[in-house]
């Protein structure tokens, strides 16, 4: 067996050592977003309210995944696996909610 098996471009991919500062920067950003999401909850924006909350949550999630979980510096495969999981989640949500939201739209009884 030759020495390295995996795809060439991973120069010890996930061993990329980040400076401490980048962790603290991400942490600070997470704190700001936490305050923001709680703050927005108290302002009545109607339907937009939910969108804003979800946007904030997604951006927090992306930051944690990219920096804290080293996805940013891992091989392409890890990117694929991480995004595939959430893509399947979206499939499940999309088709089920599609059924629920189109129930009344034809206003034919019961369908």
């Amino acid at each position, binding site marked *: *067996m*030759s020495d390295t*098996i*995996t795809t060439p471009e991973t120069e010890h991919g996930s061993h990329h050592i980040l400076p401490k500062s980048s962790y603290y920067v991400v942490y600070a950003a997470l704190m700001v977003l936490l305050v923001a999401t709680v703050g927005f909850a108290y302002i009545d924006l109607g339907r937009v309210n939910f969108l804003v909350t979800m946007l904030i949550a997604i951006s927090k999630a992306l930051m944690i995944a990219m920096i804290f979980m080293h996805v940013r510096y891992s091989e392409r*495969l890890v990117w694929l696996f991480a995004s*595939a*999981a959430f893509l*399947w989640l979206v*499939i*499940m949500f999309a*088709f*089920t909610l*599609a*059924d*629920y939201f*189109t*129930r009344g*739209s*034809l206003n*034919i009884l*019961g*369908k």
Partner: protein
Amino acid sequence: MSAQGAEPQPNYLTAGQSVRSWLLTIDHKRIGLLYMVSITLFFFLGGAAATLVRLELMTPKGDVVQPETYNKLFTAHGVIMVFFFLIPSIPAVLGNFLVPLMIGARDLAFPKLNLASWYVFMIGGVFTLWAVLTGGVDTGWTFYTPYSSMFSNTSVMSAALGVFIVGFSSILTGLNFIVTIHKMRAPGMTWLRLPLFIWAMYATSLIMILGTPVLAVTVALVGLERFFGFGIFDPKLGGDPILFQHLFWFYSHPAVYIMLLPSFGVINEIVPCFTKRPVFGYRTMATAMMAIAALGFLVWGHHMFVSGQSMYGGLIFSFLSFFVAIPSAVKVFNWTATLYKGTVSGTTPMLYALGFIGLFTIGGLTGLMLASLAIDVHVHDTYFVVAHFHYIMVGGAVMGYLGGIHFWWPKITGRMYPEIWGKLAALTIFIGFNLTFFPQFILGYLGMPRRYYEYDAEYQVLNVMSTAGASILAVGFLLPLVYLILSLWMGKEAGPNPWGAKGLEWEIPSPPTVHNFDEPPVAPERPYDYPLKEQDREPS
């Protein structure tokens, strides 16, 4: 079970005979055998339940068992066959045994997790058998609410717990395969040189990983509702039973492809070997399997056309269900094209493979009929559906499994099975199967609902034909059990490559040594590189 002279180097079977060496093994080959023994046990248990169901249906009025017992029998048949035989069959037995051999690795990526998956499987089995033996479960393998959570007074909790646990067994197997196939291929074994069986295992593992957790959560919610009396799925307490169906079928339709894709992999190995020519359209075959795994997640709503799902929902799911059929159709055409200009030999595995292609075509096409909205309204929950999924499960998955067992039996045990008995069993199964399930298509369109303990007199003749077929099928399934076990002692010595097949697993002694490869395996330039030119084809 030692061969005549002492083996120069102990193979994986003779290296340690103590019970402890078998029960604590982390050798993927031995774990494959542990799975083979346990799922064979479950197969004949589910088969016994099926025999009683078919006996009951001989007469319009139920006079073999009581209605409650009949409901428990078809539920036991469903749960045991789906979760304890069909889903683990090829991945856990042939996959565990062959994936490392085919890609040139010494073992799976996480051997201890592999052993854990078998123990989780057995613990799940104990819970489900406990449910079946102490009073049984009468909800059907689909556990539809609010019946399963609020109205059934049978041991649903224990069965739900068993299904919850056994789900983790297939998650662990899937996880092991994905990492092994990505990270432990021998040097030179690029993705396009992998045997198609490995592609099938990879596609199946994707579905196991992405689908099974949703089943676990659904079964947990049913258990929660049943134990505490919350109304998650019960409309009297604010819940919605159709949400259960969405969550359940989100896993259970892709589960059909978990049961089917491995058989595609096995047929993709058998057909080129016994036509002695490379498979037709390797790249298309691999893409088709991955496409089935992906598209399989978009179509679950075709189980719910008449369940009160919105009309738009039904339209979308019906439309997409026709797309998922296209990759399967391409595979069938490509298998047939592989026969063209080959040297076809009719050994037992090849009989199973050709039988598979024919029966799977019927199963798949009746699936198309069921996906058409107008027809499904009429035939949903009738015997048409029962016939369809048995053509896919028995005609497809079980034929594929038996073909695979016969094809790799020399490699697993170092012994050849008796060829005549093999052919006889394959023929018996083929005839018994068709006689059992083809009449059910007619019964289905006539309108006989499924899961009926009593039926109207006009359906009796077709039911009697079906039961007659079932008895032939039962004999057909018992034959391999007998002659395969006997072949362990009386079987002819099988060399490393009795079929003259291509593939890394055929270049090592059979049964293989503990560490599979003594010297590093060299990957072939092309998979299935059987000689193309006429003259240099040695008659195998």
